[in-house]
């Protein structure tokens, strides 16, 4: 799998190919607050195969980013994993020490973020920062790292790589910076890329280009992608499967096609109705009544219940994620509800 010509140096895959690359089981992340510990992410489970793309969608504060941070072993201060498991290639990421994490980063797991400008050193040429990863993590010498960096930049469809190489971040556009950052992330051919709102800050055309680039890399490198966005349209373009987050829980997970055309959770339905996937036209912009629960407001039962039109007394009880069709849903009334989907464009 040496499409970038580097793989040989990074060891081989530890588990058989039919095993999922990433296994998240019952992941719970606690946040220390003035009022004690609150579970900001509760019981999140999903599998991700090699070369597969999973979308995480949900409103702000629904736990998408905290989940990503947990996957990267970089939770913000005050947050910690209080339960569950994360396994990458059969290795439990939760038990890794600082040193083992360092070995895995870039070579097995890498990430890109929303605001590329602030994730690059403003005073160093971008090419040098890319070459730096190749030197330090890829153990290339200075000259090889430079030529590999130029190759990578060409792979990212950056025009005139040699010119861009010596520019500092302030001289590049957001889309170009995101390409550079993606190049940095995939430089050492990781198996898993976590793209946390990687396209959110970009304008629509650039967003599309970056998504195209990601699916191209996915194909060429066999890269598995966890793609976080609050934009279902963007997610449906790139991802085979989608996990919908609400209040720190996965409320529904399934293949993109099934989930969009035939949602099983009222929240997914509401999201489809208000989101950019709806039939749109000149209808007034719809919103979901109420607001997403803040950390202190999380309820014991179904967390969407207070805003849900299909609420019944059963909704006050804790619901588990139960398999439905190709996916799973966390709704006590999932079987009985008739929910409307949307058309995939």
């Amino acid at each position, binding site marked *: 799998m040496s499409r970038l010509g580097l793989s040989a140096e990074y060891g081989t895959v530890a588990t058989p190919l039919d095993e999922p690359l990433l296994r998240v089981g019952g992941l719970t992340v606690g*946040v220390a607050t003035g009022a004690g510990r609150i579970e900001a992410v509760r019981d999140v489970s999903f599998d991700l195969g090699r070369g597969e793309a999973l979308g995480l969608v949900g409103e702000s504060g*629904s736990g998408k980013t905290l989940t990503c941070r947990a996957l990267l072993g970089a939770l913000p201060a005050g947050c910690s994993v209080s339960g569950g498991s994360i396994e990458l290639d059969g290795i439990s990421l939760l038990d890794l020490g600082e040193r083992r994490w360092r070995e895995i980063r870039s070579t097995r797991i890498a990430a890109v973020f929303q605001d590329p400008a602030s994730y690059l050193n403003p005073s160093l040429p971008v090419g040098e920062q890319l070459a730096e990863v190749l030197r330090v993590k890829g153990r290339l010498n200075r000259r090889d790292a430079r030529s590999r960096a130029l190759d990578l930049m060409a792979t990212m469809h950056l025009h005139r790589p040699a010119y861009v190489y010596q520019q500092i971040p302030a001289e590049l556009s957001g889309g170009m910076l995101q390409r550079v950052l993606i190049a940095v992330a995939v430089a050492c051919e990781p198996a898993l890329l976590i793209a946390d709102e990687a396209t959110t800050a970009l304008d629509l055309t650039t967003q599309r280009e970056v998504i195209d680039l990601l699916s191209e890399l996915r194909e060429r490198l066999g890269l598995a992608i966890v793609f976080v966005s609050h934009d279902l349209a963007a997610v449906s373009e790139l991802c085979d499967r989608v996990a919908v987050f609400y209040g720190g829980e996965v409320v529904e997970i399934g293949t993109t096609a099934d989930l969009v055309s035939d949602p099983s959770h009222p929240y997914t339905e509401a999201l489809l109705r208000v989101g950019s996937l709806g039939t749109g036209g000149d209808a007034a912009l719809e919103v979901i009544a109420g607001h997403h629960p803040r950390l202190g407001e999380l309820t014991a039962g179904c967390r969407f219940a207070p805003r849900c039109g299909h609420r019944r007394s059963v909704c006050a009880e804790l619901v588990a994620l139960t398999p439905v069709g190709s996916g799973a849903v966390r709704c006590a009334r999932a079987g009985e509800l008739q929910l409307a989907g949307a058309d995939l464009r």
Partner: protein
Amino acid sequence: MKAVLVKPLELIGRALPTTYLRIAAGIVAFMLLVGALGSLIAPYDALAQDSAHTFAGPSWSHLMGTDFLGRDTLSRLIVGARPSLFSAVVAVVIGLVGGAIPGMASVLFSRRVEFVVMRFVDALMTIPPIVFAIAIVAGFGNGLPEAVVAIGVLMIPRFFRVVRAETLKHASAQYVEAATLFGASKPYVLRRHVWRKAVPTLGVVSASALGYAVLGISGLAFLGLGEIAPQPSWGSMLSDDLTYLYQAPWAAMWPGVAISLTVWALNALSDAAHTGLVREAEVPVGTESEAPETQDVGSVEPALQYV
């Protein structure tokens, strides 16, 4: 030849935009040059006594007059520049190395080690310089090296604190976090990304510390600590001249002017550099340039405030 000269001159002109700063830089350069050349350019032997011409006023043969032993004041000022200025430079280097490196490393310490180190530095800050210098001299003997070490050690806390603050400030930048997420070790990130950010601030602090060091070294010399008589230094000359203020009231002016001009010039340069830094900081760089935050993290933050 001219073309070669124009560019450096232009650069200096740009770095020192006002006459005020050019004068200050000129004074510092002049004093350093005098210190470097020392006895080479002194018109007389700085130690040669002439009992027939004590307390002489300024004249063509002795431009600044003579002191109580008939020694030429100008020569003593010139020769005294080296122990007064260069020893201050050495003291600043001691403070810089002893403060900046541990200061940057301190962000890597565990909480307990950090506590101990911080309290040690705090303790160092509470020591009165004169008392500390007297203690050093009492312990190790009187001499210029002892005085320089005393001043240098007392500079450590200032450098430590400044570098630590800068390091903490820049270590929280997102690209520093990104470097960690791409698998760089913390010491590597500090060396590669954070260190260079602290350099401009270090420059400012060094310049002002140099002013303090000149004052401190001269202050100790005034008390008889440091360069040993009859070797001249500005502080000890001032002290001698004050003893004979009735005989030669103008004499104390010369070393006084030399000390205050140098300190003023250094402070002016340090102030200007600081102003430049502040102005540059207004243009968003690094941490300040954050565009909209990731919304998910934003909603966690209110909770984190209580942590």
